[in-house]
């Protein structure tokens, strides 16, 4: 199963958000203002390219699935549009005297949609449920050892060793009603992998701001405002009825917005942003997403299968990797393939991730001659050929980027055969042991907003818990050790130093060829102003509309 690349839960205990577009902040504060005025309410039709896979909140750790679940269910802590942590079902949390035990105070007077009261039992039940073998969320909260109720509004969470980052991991762990779950026999999460189905897949009973009215998978999901929501008065809550409609085809989705059938499109194709901006009654908001796109290559194998070089691995030569890196004209990709909607990158972490720096994110200017020279030095004056694997339905213009890159490498004599296919076929090539690709495109989001997450998945040698998305075969024992040390390092300065050292090393080695940090574009009727959510999980209770 493919989780991480699709995962978009962004967590930051630091909330380093660079507000590139000042009007988001304005819009948000305006929205909050309006909320208190309690203007009139109206429905919202929300279109996106893909549907949620299941309503069972613990069955799939996937972006679009969570995005919808956030409207029915709530975690103890969630994040607003900027990625800032906001108290949800917990009102406060702190580490107790035992550094391995956290205490959470729960929100009083909260009711589930079915009228049942929310209390500590539900939290204990839900966190236990999320750690069951069939849960897909268990990986996110492996550090939890046990959850205990103290009183109806207090729970203790014991972790395996001190874990200062625990709250960050809870933002996508939804709380279910224990009684409802038992009545409907859904104490265990749906076993998605083994094609199970349970009551919770089609029904939802949470504490969220919206209640499920009806759901037709891949067609539409209708929700209505939860009028007994605890947050009324705190959030605008102006959407009376929310209809979520997956529309796969770009053109159809856009047509739906243009013709006014939907109010909000979460993924506007980059080429259409300009046109939408030209529309009187429409608005487009763009903003950075917590995700970077890059190419990976097999830097360690003795020989490559898909190349035309006998007995040698051209990628094993750093000069070749540098040449490939130089040949990549990131500005051209940004300007033409992405229509300006991306940030060319030199590292696999956007600016709001801990460890990012301007120097590290710098990249070489496209220089064909220098690249050719490097190749010639490495012994490939006439280049070589290699197969590149690319997804065609996962990232913004993924296929077009690959195509463009193929042309650029072609200019330095490296003939790249492009194989682009669906993510469901592409990702296993990377995840398999040993990997079945030698050259590939991948995108990476950093839900913890910390470089450690990047290192352990992408740079650590492939071993047990680590390196599961590292198909480069890169293995550096020293680096591995340094990466492992990050999780237990409590001294922040020391930790940051290690991170910087690692980034410098990896950048020097040119293990990956970063392309850009992805940008999101939301399109909507001009009556709304929904800013881009860094995690790409907009929560509609925040949305208000203007009456201009």
């Amino acid at each position, binding site marked *: 199963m493919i989780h991480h690349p699709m995962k978009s839960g962004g967590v930051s205990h630091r909330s380093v958000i660079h507000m590139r577009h000042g009007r988001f902040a304005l819009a948000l504060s305006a929205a909050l203002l309006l909320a208190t005025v309690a203007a009139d309410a109206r429905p919202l039709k929300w279109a996106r390219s893909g549907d949620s896979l299941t309503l069972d909140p613990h069955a799939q750790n996937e972006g679009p699935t969570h995005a919808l679940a956030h409207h029915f269910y709530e975690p103890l802590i969630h994040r607003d549009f900027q990625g800032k942590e906001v108290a949800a079902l917990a009102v406060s949390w702190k580490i107790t005297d035992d550094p391995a035990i956290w205490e959470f105070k729960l929100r009083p007077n909260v009711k589930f949609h079915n009228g049942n009261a929310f209390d500590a039992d539900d939290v204990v039940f839900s966190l236990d449920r999320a750690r069951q073998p069939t849960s897909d969320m268990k990986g996110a909260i492996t550090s939890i050892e046990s959850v205990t109720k103290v009183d109806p509004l207090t729970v203790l969470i014991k972790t395996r060793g001190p874990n200062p980052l625990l709250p960050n991991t809870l933002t996508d762990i939804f709380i279910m009603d224990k009684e409802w779950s038992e009545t409907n026999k859904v104490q265990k999460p749906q076993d998605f992998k083994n094609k199970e189905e349970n009551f919770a897949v089609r029904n939802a009973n949470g504490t969220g701001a919206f209640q499920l009215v009806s759901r037709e998978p891949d067609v539409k999901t209708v929700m209505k405002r939860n009028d007994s929501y605890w947050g009324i008065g705190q959030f605008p809550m102006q959407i009376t009825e929310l209809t979520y409609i997956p529309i796969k085809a*770009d*053109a159809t989705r*856009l*047509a739906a917005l*243009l013709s006014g059938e939907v109010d909000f499109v979460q993924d506007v*194709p980059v*080429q*259409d942003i*300009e*046109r939408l901006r030209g529309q009187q009654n429409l608005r487009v908001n763009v903003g950075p997403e917590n995700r970077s796109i890059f190419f990976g290559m097999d830097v360690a194998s003795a020989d490559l299968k*898909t190349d035309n070089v006998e007995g040698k691995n051209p990628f094993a030569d750093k000069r070749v990797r540098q040449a490939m890196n130089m040949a990549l*004209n990131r500005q*051209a*990709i940004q*300007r*033409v*393939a992405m229509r300006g909607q991306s940030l060319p990158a030199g590292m696999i972490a956007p600016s709001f991730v801990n460890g990012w720096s301007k120097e590290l994110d710098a990249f070489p200017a496209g220089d064909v001659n220098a690249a050719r020279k490097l190749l010639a030095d490495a012994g490939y004056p006439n280049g070589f050929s290699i*197969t590149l694997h690319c997804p*065609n339905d996962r990232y913004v213009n993924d*296929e*077009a980027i690959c*195509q*463009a890159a*193929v*042309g*650029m*490498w*072609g*200019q330095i004599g490296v*003939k*790249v*055969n*492009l*194989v*682009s*296919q669906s993510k469901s*076929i592409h990702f296993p*090539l990377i995840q398999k042991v040993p990997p*079945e690709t030698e050259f590939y495109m991948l995108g990476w989001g950093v839900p913890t907003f910390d470089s450690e997450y990047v290192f352990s998945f992408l740079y650590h040698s492939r071993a047990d818990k680590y390196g599961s998305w590292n198909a480069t075969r890169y293995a550096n024992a020293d680096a591995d050790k340094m990466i492992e040390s990050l999780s237990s390092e409590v001294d922040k300065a020391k930790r940051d130093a290690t991170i910087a050292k690692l980034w410098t090393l990896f950048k020097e080695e040119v293990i990956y060829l970063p392309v850009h940090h992805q940008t999101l574009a939301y399109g909507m009727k001009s009556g709304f102003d929904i800013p881009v959510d860094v995690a790409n999980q907009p929560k509609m209770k925040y949305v208000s509309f203007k009456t201009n």
Partner: protein
Amino acid sequence: MVSQSGNEAGGPAGTGWLARAWDSDVGYSFRTSPVAIGAAFVSGLIILATVFANVITPQNPFDAATLNLMDGFTPPGEAGAGSGMTFGLGADSQGRDVYSAILYGTRVSLLIGFASTVFSLVFGVTLGLVAGYVGGRIEALIMRIADIQLSFPAILVALLVFGVARGLMPPSLHEQMTFAVMTIAIGLSNWAQYARTVRASTMVEKRKEYVDAARVIGLRPFPVMIRHVLPNVAGPVLVIATINLALAILEEATLSFLGVGMPPTQPSLGTLIRIGQQFLFSGEWWILLFPSLALVILALAINLFGDWLRDALNPKLR
């Protein structure tokens, strides 16, 4: 009847087949049908253009290294920002000259069209001949299968073959095998028509006495089928093949449009339309419009020709 005696008026004997064909009823019908002439001219022109595509295009759109990304989205008639060359029909998102891409894409479409048409023709005609000539259980079996096949639309069969082929082949081979898979998928979805027609004609022909005459001198069924029956069922087969060619091209386009066809690095017309469709609203109309026009004109020309051929070869309609 009088109308028949018109048919008997043959041209001068002993002239070349071309002259005779020109002078025949079909030839006459061709000469007097502006639609047929136009359709044949346009089809011929397109085929010629695609054959000499590498000579008459400024760019090889299949060679990614020659593309300049900065030329991307150059409007028709303007010079690209990267290479500075002028793009008569504009450039697409990859800086590919739309005109070159159309010719190369049409070449791919035509190749798949021809290959799959030949595939289904050979397959269907063989089965039809055998069914019609041998009869009995073999015929029943073949025709039942053809019935079943015919009750499933070509696009469904093609999708199915495509899906099965993908399931059977290692993912790494998918891209290289696309051409073959497409050819077989489209070919397999169209053979039944030939089989049906050929069987029906064969059953008519085999009752004719010239077949008996051949059998009297001891010819075996196979030579009789090949030498005598086959040439006489060629007319309807030709008509079906022409119309099937148009159909196969459209089918290829549809498959590519649905995303199960040719890859964007070797775009066929369908792939070009699929790519172009992304720019339907963004103002870069030329990326969608020109390949669509090319596809429709090509299909229409072939269809018009096939339609005329059907009427011309059907003596009843004269």
